[in-house]
């Protein structure tokens, strides 16, 4: 629990229910999807997708536009029904009770512009089963620096502020499982940091987060495991470090000059002053370094695993 304002009897009841839901396994599967298929107008949007999300992890759901991520999220939330396959949340099928344990930030944001921030948050909190959410609303508004805007109409706030309010909607009821669809879109670096810090705090409290985003740097920094889907198929799934290791070595180089093709480099992403080079297995990085010095003036040279961005682009273009 992040807040201690919940009445003791309610708290006990909730904890009791969770214990009942979770059983005694310490590595609980919060979410398990098996062989999910979904077709729209004859076009397969999801093709036999299976994955698990474990308690307390930040799980990245990745894929290019139109890959089927949002459809997947809507199936998890029981907004859409799959054509075949099953989803288990907290080791059972989703129902009205389990919905109260989920926090959801949809990609297409939706708040009521004509009512006050407080009323809007109170309404969504009550729908999630919170009886007296006033203290929690004040707590979270203070945390994101918007307590002073509590009595203003939602429509009067800036787009970034509305996005933060929408984020609070998804966590206000202290859910155990949080799905965030593109949470950082439209936020400035300061607000991005605020949201990121809150997410890490939630993770440290044992909450499970599914993060669907195109911002690979955030996924790389925050996610423990990922699922990448492309054209409705699961193309990458598992521990992020293992996936990166499988993709071989990579060289990150900052330079001045004109970079040309180098022998032994499978793929080169050149940004003008920075480049990422994926090496073939047999090539020695020292040979590449030598070749680079003949072409450009090197400012920084780093041998590492390929970035998730490189892997994403590589997989999406296949």
């Amino acid at each position, binding site marked *: 629990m992040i807040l201690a304002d919940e009445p003791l009897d309610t708290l006990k009841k909730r904890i009791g229910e969770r214990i009942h839901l979770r059983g005694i396994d310490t590595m609980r599967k919060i979410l398990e999807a098996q062989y999910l298929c979904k077709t729209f107008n004859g076009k397969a949007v999801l093709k036999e997708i299976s994955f698990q999300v474990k308690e307390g992890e930040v799980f990245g759901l990745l894929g290019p536009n139109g890959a089927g991520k949002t459809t997947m999220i809507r199936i998890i939330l029981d907004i859409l029904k799959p054509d075949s396959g099953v989803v288990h949340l907290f080791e059972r099928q989703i129902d009205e009770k389990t919905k109260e344990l989920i926090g959801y930030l949809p990609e297409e944001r*939706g708040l009521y512009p004509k009512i006050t921030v407080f009323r809007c948050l109170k309404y969504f909190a009550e729908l999630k089963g919170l009886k007296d959410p006033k203290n929690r609303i004040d707590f979270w508004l203070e945390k994101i620096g918007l307590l002073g805007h509590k009595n203003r109409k939602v429509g009067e706030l800036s787009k970034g502020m509305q996005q933060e309010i929408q984020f609070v909607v998804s966590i206000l009821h202290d859910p155990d499982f949080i799905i965030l669809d593109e949470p950082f879109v439209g936020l400035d670096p300061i607000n991005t940091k605020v949201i990121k810090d809150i997410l890490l705090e939630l993770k440290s409290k044992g909450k499970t987060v599914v993060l669907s985003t195109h911002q690979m740097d955030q996924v790389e920094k925050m996610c423990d495991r990922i699922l990448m889907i492309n054209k409705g198929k699961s193309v990458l799934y598992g521990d992020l470090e293992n996936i990166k290791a499988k993709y071989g070595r990579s060289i990150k180089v900052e330079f001045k000059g004109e970079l040309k093709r180098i022998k032994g480099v499978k793929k080169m992403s050149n940004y003008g002053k920075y480049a990422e080079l994926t090496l073939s297995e047999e090539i020695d990085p020292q040979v590449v370094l030598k070749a680079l010095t003949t072409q450009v003036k090197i400012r920084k040279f780093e041998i590492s695993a390929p970035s998730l961005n490189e892997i994403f682009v590589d997989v999406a273009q296949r």
Partner: protein
Amino acid sequence: MNKAFIVAKHEFLTTVGSKGFILVCIVFPLLIAVPALLFTGSIRSMVTKTPDAIGFVDQTNSLQESKGFIKFPQEEQAKETLLQNEIKFFFVVSSDYYDTGKVFFYSKDDPFSSVSTESVKEFIIENLLREFNLDERVKERIRNPMKQEEFELDRRGEIEKKKSGISSFFPYLLAVVLIMGMLTPSGYMVQGIAAEKENKSVEILVSSISSNQLLTGKILGLGSAAMLQVTIWLVLGITFMFLTPLGPVLQQMELPGLLWMVVPYFILGCLLFAASMACVGTFAGSVREAQQSIQVFSLLAVLPLLFLSSISQSPNSIIARVLTYIPYTCPVTTMMRLSLTEVPLFEIIVSILILLISVIVMIRLSARIFRIEILMYGKKANLRNILRYLKG
């Protein structure tokens, strides 16, 4: 608390707290009351002090002054007093009055100025009666020759009491109030759903509660707001009416004994139209599209008014009975009939049952279609797809 009640509370508070609601609640009765008050001169009497006294010049020299009537020897003096605003108006009883009955009225050129001939008539009659030594009962009959009661024979020759003046206007008034009241939540409903679809908040809502609970809550909340609105209209409307000279006339109006039946018909009518409009709002792509679609259902509500003269003349005719059994026309038709005649009890029970079943079916159907619309994200809902999903 059931989540449908949370939605109902939210919808009610959001609606009654909106500027539009307050505007409609206050402005609408004013639109009716202000012209009525202007027309009857009541505003003038409320805002300025108008004299009560009436002047007269008697060229027959037979009328005597009495309370509220001031006698002037010449017209010139009466005119001067009128211009000084000391009398309301004056009249001149012509010298050949006993032969011709001519009386000339003079008032100021003022839109609020009016002459009340009825009080002058009473004044002249009292003066004329003084000249004859008549029995007091005869005098009373000269003052009020008759107290009228009219009866009508129906086709079977049975006698029914005919509604008098203002009472015969009652069914029309009732129908208009009912139609406006029933369509009010529908308007809010269709706009609310379309707006939620437009601003995407519906996705959070359906991830928290079932579409059945969501729609039931919306219908209850918006229906309650509509009932509050109609109650405010009625209270304000009746208050304003009693400020006009129509007040005493309204007091004499004969209200039908089953007027309380308006409550169940109104509630069920509100729910039926609101549930139907939920479908419209679900299909509409935007608030503007939704508003255009309302007109179709508005026509259904207004349909009984097209048969008003037929229903008024024959409240138990086939047309009236058929309209009583059609859910969308039932509330207005039945209340119009009830205000005109006695409607058989079984017809009332059957019509309420039909209405109740229609409301339940429509709420469930709307919730299902609402869910289907969500299932078909990003696609235009067409009839073929909806029928396919409904069957499934």
